[in-house]
């Protein structure tokens, strides 16, 4: 039987797509090391190790070819996305647990690559923040504000041995999003909060540069046509519009669009997580709807919810909606007036 013999010259085969994704994450990782210290490298390493370990284990248990699937790099991409959304210098078992939920529960229980309904990294993140809220909100402080920036060796120590040697106050701080929430709840007016050094220029000291690097990486992916414009643009536009509306409604309680775009996981989510084709809506109209929903929910959860950042929950919520969105946004087929299947 003929396969289709000409499908040998694709621009990027699936494993190469994953490699390109990781390449696009590098600038942000670099910026992170520069601005927050080398701690993130420990997280990336651990997450990768655990994720590949779990992937191997499950593949063995399911009797699937190891080399073939490990070479597709998808476990690594998931691991990196998870490490980048988790706090730096978290205890090692948090990474282990995260990798377990991402690779085993969210990915392989659904049949493995391409069949999962939820974004694995975001499932892991949500499980962790719901179960371990304290550990998940202790972020490394920006280098210029911290009393002490742990070296790579110290970072290993912190991750594996806990906080014996160093006082947490010396190197951690709340993220701007988290800080803003607590400050607003205690009644501090908005302009005064935003004036603090933690907030940097727009979205948080250090964090805003990392966000810029995610934007850069995303632009690379767009340029290589590995993602389409629909999801990032709709996501960021929805974040900006929702944030602006809220700010217009009550400037004393809500930060503006720029802050929301540059802080937290907005950029990471817009270019690298919401664009995961497996779990996102896949029709052009559906993508716009999906990403706009996610962006809007992100800001709403940030502004009103209990959790500091809403990206993960917003994306998971829209993951739930993606199959239905696809059903109702089927494009018009050639020679028909359109309609749903």
């Amino acid at each position, binding site marked *: *039987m003929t*396969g289709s013999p000409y499908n040998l010259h694709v621009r990027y085969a699936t494993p190469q797509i994953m490699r390109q994704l990781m390449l696009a994450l590098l600038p942000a990782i670099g910026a992170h090391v520069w601005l927050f210290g080398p701690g993130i490298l420990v997280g990336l390493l651990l997450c990768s190790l655990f994720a590949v370990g779990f992937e191997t284990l499950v593949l063995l248990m399911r*009797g*699937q*070819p190891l080399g*073939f699937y490990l070479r597709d790099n998808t476990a690594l991409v998931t691991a990196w996305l998870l490490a980048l959304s988790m706090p730096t210098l978290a205890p090692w078992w948090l990474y282990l647990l995260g990798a377990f939920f991402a690779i085993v529960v969210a990915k392989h229980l659904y049949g493995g690559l391409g069949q999962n309904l939820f974004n694995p990294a975001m499932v892991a993140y949500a499980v962790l923040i719901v179960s371990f809220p304290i550990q998940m909100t202790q972020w490394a402080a920006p280098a210029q504000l911290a009393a002490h920036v742990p070296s790579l060796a110290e970072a290993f120590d912190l991750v594996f041995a806990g906080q014996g040697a160093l006082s947490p106050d010396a190197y951690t701080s709340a993220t701007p999003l988290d800080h803003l929430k607590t400050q607003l709840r205690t009644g501090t007016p908005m302009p005064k909060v935003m004036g603090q050094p933690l907030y940097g220029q727009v979205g948080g000291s250090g964090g805003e540069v990392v966000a810029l690097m995610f934007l850069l990486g995303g632009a690379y992916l767009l340029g290589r046509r590995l993602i389409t414009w629909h999801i990032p643009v709709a996501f960021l536009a929805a974040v900006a519009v929702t944030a602006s509306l809220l700010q217009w409604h009550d400037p004393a309680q809500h930060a503006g669009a720029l802050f929301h775009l540059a802080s937290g996981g907005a950029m990471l989510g817009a270019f690298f997580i919401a664009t995961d084709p497996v779990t996102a809506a896949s029709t052009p109209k559906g993508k716009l709807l999906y990403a706009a929903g996610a962006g809007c929910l992100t800001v709403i959860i940030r502004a009103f919810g209990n959790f500091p950042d809403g990206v993960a929950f917003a994306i998971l919520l829209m993951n739930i909606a993606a199959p239905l969105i696809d059903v109702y946004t089927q494009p018009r087929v050639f020679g028909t007036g359109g309609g749903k299947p």
Partner: protein
Amino acid sequence: MLTAILVMALGGLLLGGVLGWASVRYRVEDDPLVEKIDAILPQTQCGQCGFPGCKPYAEAISKGEADINRCPPGGEDGVKRLAELLGVDPKPLGEGLEHKPKSVAVIDENLCIGCTLCIQACPVDAIVGAAKQMHVIVADQCTGCELCLSPCPVECIHMEVVHEDVATWKWRYPVYTLHPTRPH
């Protein structure tokens, strides 16, 4: 206490009245589900399900008296489609029933004595012939039910598997070399 009883009695009367009216207003005469089930059954009329034909089996399914996995000619596929229609889980074919490849009955013309017994047994009148004449099975109309095999006194009827040709050939399920597919 009295009020409580009164209240409940009044409520009961009122609701009973509404339900009574509704049962008249929305009466359903026939159950069109039987037709839908019958449409899925392969109409071989072979009786392997234990019912004298496809329609009686369809009626039994719709009444919940028979399981959906009693039809071997329909195969797993037929069970799956019945399950889909009825919103239940598909299950393997019932015990002692197995799906055979489609075949048709063929009469050995040298043996046939023209007794007409098979003609009477055929549920779809696919056998033509008259007394003391050779009988012929019209292959296009034969459903492969095998009901004509046992009545034949000289055992001149046998089943022949229908082989595929260029016109009935189907593209096979594409084979993956490494990616294991869901077993069916």
